[in-house]
């Protein structure tokens, strides 16, 4: 591990194939922007000025304040959860790791309904407190409700990315610090935290941009943001021009946020430099903090996982009692979810790897621009990205329009940064000299990447795959618009049922969504532990 400047690799020549694939992928992700400009221009200068002055200025502050608040709280929860579940002797670490990642698949509109039902002014909690004279709880609507819901479903983005980084850290620095007499806390703050900066930044960016494009939570909590205004434009007047202009402002904000984030994560390198293979991480002994740590995990899990499950189960029981529930229907939708998420994840990983390699290893205008471009669609509401593909799909690729392939491409545009971020965070931990050694020993570049870099980046690949897979599982607007007719996923079933006010019918696919999502998460944890089996117990708080 060294904090040397990254000048060694920046002067290096970028392989043409790598640059080309990065540019192609980045180019694809700006397709929606082209559409938005086409639609926005139709508004004419007066219309443009009107939207920009009256709507945009009002929404900027509201949207950004929510974004920052959620990011700060998500980073706090996410880093804490990542550290506890990967670097301490927390009892049942793996169990907590899976459980605390689960909120990732709770769709935000479902979370919105659930929190209103449970914590609303006259929700379940108020009913329990009524005997104690509580007639009404403080309103959940507005900023506070949106903040709570979004924090509880986005902190896993930070947790998963940071966890991958923690697993890949070189423990020798910590060991050295420990030999020099540093306490556990000093090691955490001075050694571990600085090394986590790229992964924390990556997770924080994902959270911030998630908030920018979220519709479900902000609409149910009645907090006006850009996304809500964009939806309202389509809703009331089919005003695609106004929606396009607002979307362009949103993208601009997102790209500013991305450049700010990129600026702070630069300048250092994060890979180990000593010889030898990767060691098992260093485990902290929690001691008297064990009980508070377990309690903290329990509180988060209760709010973000148990509460949605409990409210859904309640809706189900009520509907079952009335004999109005058909529990067989969601299984086709379950298969649909797997097919869509699997295809989308595969496509995302294939596209993300060259980009992650490009931005992790090289400097210059090509890696920088390509790295930023992928974020442009990520901040857009799903409906906007979907409509841009409707526009281009029907005109340029009708043979592919409304196929699972097209849907997977929409997922690529929407979620690529999640995969790139996670893989990149792993790649920056790989010492470039290992790659160079492989080249010196006669491997071709492709072979060296395949046999040396890929295996070392496994935590990032697995983490990125899990993030994308689980996010696609709950994706709604693009799936509704671009999926083949007759194709349904668990998320679309949940949405359809809540729209018709059939909450019991919504609960069945919602619970199935949570249960099915535990499978890939469990698989991810199993893969992760293969490398560390047998080594974990040996190095607990020695030194």
């Amino acid at each position, binding site marked *: 591990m060294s904090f040397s400047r990254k000048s060694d690799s920046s002067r290096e020549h970028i392989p043409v194939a790598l640059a080309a694939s990065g540019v192609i992928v980045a180019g694809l992700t700006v397709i929606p922007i082209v559409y938005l400009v086409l639609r926005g221009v139709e508004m004419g200068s007066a219309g443009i000025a009107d939207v920009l002055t009256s709507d945009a200025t009002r929404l900027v502050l509201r949207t950004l304040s929510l974004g920052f608040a959620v990011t700060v709280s998500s980073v706090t929860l996410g880093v804490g959860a990542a550290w506890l579940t990967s670097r301490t002797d927390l009892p049942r670490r793996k169990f907590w790791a899976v459980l605390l990642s689960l909120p990732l698949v709770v769709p935000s509109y479902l979370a919105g309904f659930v929190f209103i*039902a449970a914590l609303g002014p006259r929700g379940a909690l108020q009913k329990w407190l009524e005997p104690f004279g509580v007639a009404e709880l403080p309103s959940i609507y507005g900023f506070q409700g949106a903040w709570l819901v979004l924090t509880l479903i986005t902190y896993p983005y930070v947790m998963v990315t940071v966890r991958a980084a923690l697993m890949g850290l070189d423990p020798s620095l910590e060991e050295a610090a420990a030999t020099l007499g540093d306490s556990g806390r000093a090691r955490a703050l001075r050694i571990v935290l600085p090394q986590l900066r790229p992964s924390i930044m990556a997770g924080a960016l994902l959270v911030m941009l998630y908030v920018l494009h979220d519709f479900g939570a902000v*609409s149910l909590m009645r907090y006006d943001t850009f996304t809500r205004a964009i939806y309202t434009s389509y809703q009331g007047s089919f005003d*695609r021009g106004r929606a396009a202009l607002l979307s362009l402002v949103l993208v601009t904000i997102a790209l500013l946020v991305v450049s700010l984030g990129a600026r702070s994560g630069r300048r250092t390198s994060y890979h180990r430099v000593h010889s030898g293979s990767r060691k098992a991480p260093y485990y902290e002994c929690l001691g008297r903090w064990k009980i508070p740590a377990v309690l903290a995990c329990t509180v988060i899990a209760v709010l973000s996982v148990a509460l949605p499950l409990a409210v859904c189960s309640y809706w189900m029981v009520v509907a079952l009692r*009335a004999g109005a529930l058909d529990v067989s229907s969601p299984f086709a939708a379950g298969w649909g979810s797997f097919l869509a998420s699997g295809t989308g994840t595969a496509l995302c990983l294939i596209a993300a790897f*060259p980009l992650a390699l490009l931005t992790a290893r090289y400097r210059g205008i090509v890696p920088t621009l390509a790295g930023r471009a992928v974020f442009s669609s990520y901040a857009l509401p799903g409906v906007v990205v979907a409509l841009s593909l409707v526009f281009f799909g029907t005109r340029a690729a009708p043979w592919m329009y409304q196929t699972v392939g097209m849907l997977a491409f929409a997922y690529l545009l929407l979620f690529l940064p999640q995969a790139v971020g996670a893989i990149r965070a792993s790649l920056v931990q790989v010492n470039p000299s290992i790659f160079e050694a492989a080249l010196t020993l006669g491997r071709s570049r492709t072979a060296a990447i395949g046999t040396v870099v890929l295996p070392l980046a496994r935590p990032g690949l697995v983490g990125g795959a899990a993030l994308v897979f689980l996010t696609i599982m709950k994706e709604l607007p693009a799936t509704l618009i671009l999926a083949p007719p007759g194709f349904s996923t668990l998320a679309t079933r949940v949405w359809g049922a809540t729209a*018709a006010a*059939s909450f019991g019918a919504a609960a069945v696919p919602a619970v199935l969504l949570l249960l099915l999502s535990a499978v890939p998460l469990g698989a991810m944890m199993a893969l992760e532990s293969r490398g560390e089996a047998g080594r974990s117990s040996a190095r607990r708080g020695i030194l």
Partner: protein
Amino acid sequence: MKRLLPIAIASILSACAGQTVPTTPEEKPQSLTVYSGRSEELVGPILEAFEKKSGIDLKIKYADTAELASTILEEKDGSPADLFLAQDAGALGALQKEGLFEKLPAPITSRVPAKFRSASDSWVGVTGRARVLVYNTQRQKASDMPRSVLELTQAQYKGKVGWAPTNGSFQSFVTALRKVKGESVARQWLEGMKANGTKSYEKNSAIVKAVGAGEIEIGLVNHYYLVEIKKEDPSIKAANHFFEGDVGGLVNVSGAGVLKSSKKTQAALKLLEYLISDEAQEKFANAEFEYPVVETVQASSELPALDTLSQPDVDLSDLDDLKGTLELLQEVGLL
């Protein structure tokens, strides 16, 4: 890596190509593509009945009405949809304005009264739904419900009422209010409601839930949401209040049209014909408690008769009227 990338993409694409809808010749269509802005819970069983009866396979895309309308507007001539089933007249009007609907033949249009179909025969209503007040039966009595929606600005309702300003049916109601009572009354009422602490919700289902929980006591919604919730939760403490002859009880239509871009026009017309047949209308009336739009079928006996409700002479698919409503809602600060 270099060689793997195109192969992987190609294999994914070919795996997905099997999902495309096969195009069949006009003579004997095996399948139709339907875009439905009405949810599967409500229309699924009726569309299934058509499939059984006709032998035509329906590929149905369920999504939000406004988003489907926007989708069709972007697809233009390339739309795979044969028939569009919409939640409200506004969305149908948007497609009509762009000339995307096939002109419907007389056997279809003559079955539906003029007030429930497009003036240019672009689409017909399929069901009617009344605007109602849903109220919490523990906190409000039926006798305390106002005779007119205009009375909701009174002090006794302060902070107790909820509405959904972004909802299409609500906006249709405001359009009708403007047309029937005049611009200034409509504006005054909206401002009065706002000053009276009326709470905004995202959609009708959320309002009915909030009324059931007692979070608010009265909500402005369409009548059938409570019916749906009651199927699952018969003990919910809520009831519908219908207005007699008041604009607050406006009857909106859900409707359908056949797209000009369709290559299976005949089969699509057959489906539309079925939707307004006695058989389907009875299903809508008795299973979903919606109002039939044809005169040969009676509404459910649990609902007040259609002719007691307000049906002002307003074309709810007129987008220019809708635009005026949206501007008014924006000026009052509700959008």
